[in-house]
């Protein structure tokens, strides 16, 4: 008998069916992946298993857990299963943990509720569990509030809470989506290591995560399971069209064409740029330290790094949205100085930005025509509204939208369409440099691929230079000519894409590449992920800022900060770059 049997599950909100005739089984100890794009019904399915659907949802169909039917509204019966027999890990540990309650208390409450232990025994069990998930000094962490922990540590607490009652099934809904890529690997390994014979239902949009970790996969599309099967066969011989498309659209870090680096002349020079913030307590935080970088004509330069790397602060200071504390930026022979409002019109026109979240980048009260046309009315105030409309239409066509969109409002667009509008607004002034700040991070596979193709087409046509900020190295590999890697505000390696991905020079670059999941069960590696997390900007480590996490660190690394230096065509900031063998990647 299977542990979990789902039979003809249907969930609808009014007339809108979000899950439609879904049936599957999970056996004891098995790990099953639920994959699909956002809105495909995979999370709704998981919520239904625990009876956590909102009240407006109507669900029908059978769910049997360990031989007992789970009835949607029988809260008493559900409460005996929730937490005790089925544990759950949610996406964003910041939101999913109670910010007003010490973490030890949150865990202890589960033990009390299910009568597993009480009093001092419960406390001891909580401390032991916190230790098992890798919290240093678990006795002290018992009394800590969630906001005092890093993102990775918070997710470890979530896992501790899900496993403390030793459930038979663990559901993890996008458990690493809110985390940095090096931490993602740690968390996934931890889940695997701790679950023993607990069955795992792993829900994700990222095929790379399930590839090496799940025995079986269920592929969701528009509320239905379109394909299921053993992971290996599903990846090597997908039968369903949607599965094939998902696989084709998933960027791979280990293969595919790399755009060759050109040698055009420099259009933008950044010299020793530093940016600092003052935090609430009045302390100065160095977000960017002494970064020098150049952007060439018609090239796409990637800036990659995890949270706190300073990549966004760097470009925002270049654009004049935040002040640069020291250093300078030279564009077309003249310095770019001061806040954006004080810059010459031509300088403003030539540098444009595309944001990560298109929903927030478009004014909800303005029609698409006005959103895209506004830059024109600022830079060519005399132009007639007719000529402006023609220009808007032309640029919309270029990004793949037609005149039907002119009168629409942003909320009437999908994520991909909204991002096209944002790109159209940035391109309508015919800039020389386009900065994309995580511009495809919020998009699903197909929409992401199309935006990347669009950017490439524009570049080929007009010789646009692009700065492409991303945390996702597999996207960078297929779309950027050169890569700059940042860590804790410092530039640590700059190299041609090809060189960086085949033979990285800095241990951190290597770790980033290794941590990127590959959507291929055969390619999945078993290297140990980077340990620890990105330190706080408040207290950056001495010497080389990477040394606490570096396997090669020596005395010198702890004491003096390495300078960026030339090494066989690349630039790298590592004392030991020549002395260590990082091996070849892809």
């Amino acid at each position, binding site marked *: 008998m299977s542990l979990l049997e789902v039979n003809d599950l249907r969930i609808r909100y009014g007339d809108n069916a979000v899950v439609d005739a879904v049936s599957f089984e999970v056996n004891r100890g098995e790990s099953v992946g639920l994959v699909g794009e956002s809105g495909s019904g995979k999370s709704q399915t998981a919520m239904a298993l625990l009876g956590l659907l909102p009240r407006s949802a109507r669900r029908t169909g059978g769910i049997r857990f360990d031989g007992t039917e789970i009835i949607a509204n029988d809260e008493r019966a559900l409460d005996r299963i929730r937490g005790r027999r089925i544990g759950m890990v949610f996406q964003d540990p910041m939101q999913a943990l109670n910010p007003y309650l010490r973490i030890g208390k949150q865990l202890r409450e589960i033990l009390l509720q299910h009568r597993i232990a009480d009093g001092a025994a419960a406390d001891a069990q909580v401390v032991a569990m916190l230790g098992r998930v890798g919290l240093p000094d678990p006795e002290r962490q018992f009394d800590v509030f969630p906001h005092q922990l890093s993102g990775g540590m918070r997710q470890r607490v979530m896992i501790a809470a899900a496993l403390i009652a030793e459930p038979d099934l663990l559901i993890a809904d996008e458990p690493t989506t809110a985390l940095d890529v090096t931490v993602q690997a740690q968390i996934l390994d931890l889940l695997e290591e701790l679950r023993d014979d607990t069955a795992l239902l792993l829900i994700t949009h990222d095929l790379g995560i399930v590839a090496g970790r799940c025995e079986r996969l269920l592929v969701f599309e528009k509320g239905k399971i379109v394909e299921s099967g053993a992971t290996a066969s599903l990846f090597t011989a997908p039968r369903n069209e949607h599965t094939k498309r998902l696989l084709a659209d998933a960027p791979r870090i280990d293969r595919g064409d790399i755009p060759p680096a050109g040698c055009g002349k420099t259009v933008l020079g950044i010299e020793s740029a530093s940016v600092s913030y003052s935090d609430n307590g009045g302390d100065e935080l160095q977000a960017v330290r002494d970064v020098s970088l150049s952007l060439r004509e018609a090239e796409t330069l990637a800036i990659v790094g995890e949270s706190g790397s300073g990549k966004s602060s760097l470009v925002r200071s270049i654009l004049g*949205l935040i002040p640069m504390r020291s250093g300078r930026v030279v564009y077309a022979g003249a310095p770019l100085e001061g806040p954006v409002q004080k810059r010459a019109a031509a300088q403003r026109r030539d540098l444009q930005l595309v944001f990560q979240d298109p929903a927030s980048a478009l004014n909800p009260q303005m029609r698409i025509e006005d959103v895209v046309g506004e830059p024109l009315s600022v830079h060519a105030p005399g132009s007639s509204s007719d000529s402006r409309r023609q220009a808007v239409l032309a640029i919309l066509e270029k990004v793949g939208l037609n005149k039907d969109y002119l009168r629409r409002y942003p909320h009437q667009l999908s994520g991909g369409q909204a991002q096209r509008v944002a790109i159209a*607004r940035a391109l309508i002034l015919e800039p020389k440099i386009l900065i994309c700040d995580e511009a495809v991070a919020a998009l699903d596979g197909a929409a992401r691929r199309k935006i990347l193709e669009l950017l490439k087409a524009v570049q080929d046509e007009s010789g646009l230079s692009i700065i492409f900020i991303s945390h996702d190295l597999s996207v960078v590999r297929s779309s950027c000519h050169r890569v700059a890697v940042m860590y804790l505000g410092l530039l640590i390696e700059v190299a041609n894409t090809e060189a960086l991905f085949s033979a990285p020079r800095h241990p951190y670059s290597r770790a980033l590449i290794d941590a990127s999941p590959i959507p291929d069960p055969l390619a999945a590696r078993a290297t140990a992920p980077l340990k620890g997390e990105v330190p706080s900007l408040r207290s950056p480590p001495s010497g080389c800022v990477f040394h606490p996490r570096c396997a090669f660190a020596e005395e010198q690394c702890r004491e003096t900060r390495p300078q960026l230096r030339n090494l066989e065509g690349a630039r790298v900031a590592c004392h030991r770059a020549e002395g260590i063998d990082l091996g070849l990647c892809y």
Partner: protein
Amino acid sequence: MRWSAAILLFVLLLAIVAPWLSPHDFQNTNFNAILQSPGLSDGRFFGTDEFGRDLFVRTMLGIRITLLVAVVASLVSLVIGVTYGAVAGYIGGRVDAVMMRLVDTLYALPFIFFVILLMVAFERNFFLIFVAIGAINWLDMARIVRGQTLSLREREFVEAARLTGVSTVRIIFRHIAPNLLGIVVVYVTLSVPQAILVESFLSFLGLGVQEPQTSLGALVNAGVKQMEGASWMLLIPAALLALILMCFNFLGDALRDFFDARHVR
């Protein structure tokens, strides 16, 4: 929402038109007709008071003045509150901190006592009622507008506008103001009943509108003195006052739900 708006509109129209149509006057005393109970004969729908004045006409007049004071006071608080809040929110940083510290400080004061002090000291000046009520209500508006502006200013579409060179004035009017409109409409609607409460409170204490003029608060005050023999003098203006307040509160709540729903999407 429709019901509240319809009732308010009806009451407003009645208050404007009825005194013209009635054969009675708001201040003529008639000692042959004191404390008459309400009835249809003679057009004395609400009866008369202890001086024989017609209460229907007086009540309608009271509604006029109550609404006038409340609406003007709300507009005063709207202008002060929105300007103050938008400036603090848009400039941000230290200026914002100082401006909001002041608002917090004022917030902690027993304002109504100051207002009473003011009304007594300055001879119950009618104009002062507006100032006093506006001075209380703008604080809420300033806080809300400031919070909203602060979050709008950080929104990426405002940054996008700055990047393409849109001027600050244009950003405020084109990008920030339209997105503030909903919340301002809601809080103006909710500040009208607040203003009505303060005005009628002052009039009830005899510190607001002065005889022979009247307002709903003053009528309730007069009604309290006669309530044992002539309960209509209390109950009619009290019920109308509660009805008007309730309609404004309902309207505000409904508008808030409406704009909240739009915001979520």
